[in-house]
């Protein structure tokens, strides 16, 4: 399969300067053998290596999962506080209802913190 014109780097032509080495090859860079390896000056882009396409910072992903879990747990606590506040109000304990509201506000602040604390996490 031939490579279209204009796809080669400048001052480059396929094959070796030594004609006897120019066996039929199909790669774009036939001189770069599997043994060229590290520190071959012709290798300027390493390309995808092992682990390519996977999460590059798994600790950040885990932290985001933990933040979601924390937020959900806090909201469950808020639901409980709302039931306590409703019961307290119905029994005439207005002070208790307001304390529950304060707890709910504090919980909301925790959730907002968990949401906004690190916006670049994916």
């Amino acid at each position: 399969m031939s490579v279209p014109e204009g796809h080669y780097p400048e001052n480059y032509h396929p094959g070796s300067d030594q004609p006897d080495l120019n066996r039929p090859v199909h790669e774009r860079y036939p001189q770069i053998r599997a043994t060229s390896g590290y520190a071959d000056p012709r290798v300027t882009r390493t390309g995808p290596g092992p682990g390519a396409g996977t999460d590059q910072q798994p600790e950040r992903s885990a932290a985001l999962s933990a933040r979601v879990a924390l937020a959900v747990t806090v909201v469950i606590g808020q639901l409980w506080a709302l039931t306590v506040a409703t019961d307290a109000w119905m029994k005439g304990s207005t002070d208790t209802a307001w304390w529950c509201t304060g707890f709910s506000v504090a919980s909301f602040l925790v959730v907002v913190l968990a949401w906004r604390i690190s916006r670049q996490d994916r």
Partner: protein
Amino acid sequence: MTTEPSAPDEEERAALRDRISADSLTTRRDYLRIVATVSGGLVVGSTVVAAGVLSRHGDGSAPPLKVADALTPGQAVAFGYPGEDDRALAVKLADGTVVGYSAICTHLACGVLWQQDRGTEGELHCPCHEGVFDVRTGEVTAGPPPRPLPKVIMVEDAQGAVWAIGTARSGESERSGLCRGLRASDPALAGAAGCRADEGAS
């Protein structure tokens, strides 16, 4: 002979396939935003509850109401007190005690019924979710209701007529409920009747 699908159909199908096969349509960051929104809504709800948007049986005061000329043991009567919409019922127990309660279940506000043939001396029963209240105290004895029934304070006069004279909230003593009502209508009379400042204050 089959017909080839038109090009737009194929594009739509391909777009739909891409969308369905996407790794995650809602990211965890989206979940955090949704959870934060729910959390804010709960704060608003709790504030509204504490500020007093929910109506309670017995809010406000009313003059004594004659609910029946006479009750026989085991007999019940339904009435509205202190307001016409505050549904309540009074029951005369076998020993002659007259008790009164809100007839609105504390679970999901269904109607509470007097059932003389249940329990040792009858029960107040909510048929919606099988809630049961003790007829002598109003406490929950079975089912999902979270609070005792609010009380309506009943008295029987010398002629046997039954009167509603006040209310007490869930778990509140009759004295505290009477003092609260008296303080709302006539603070001086509440003081003269010996109501302490902390009785029925809320």
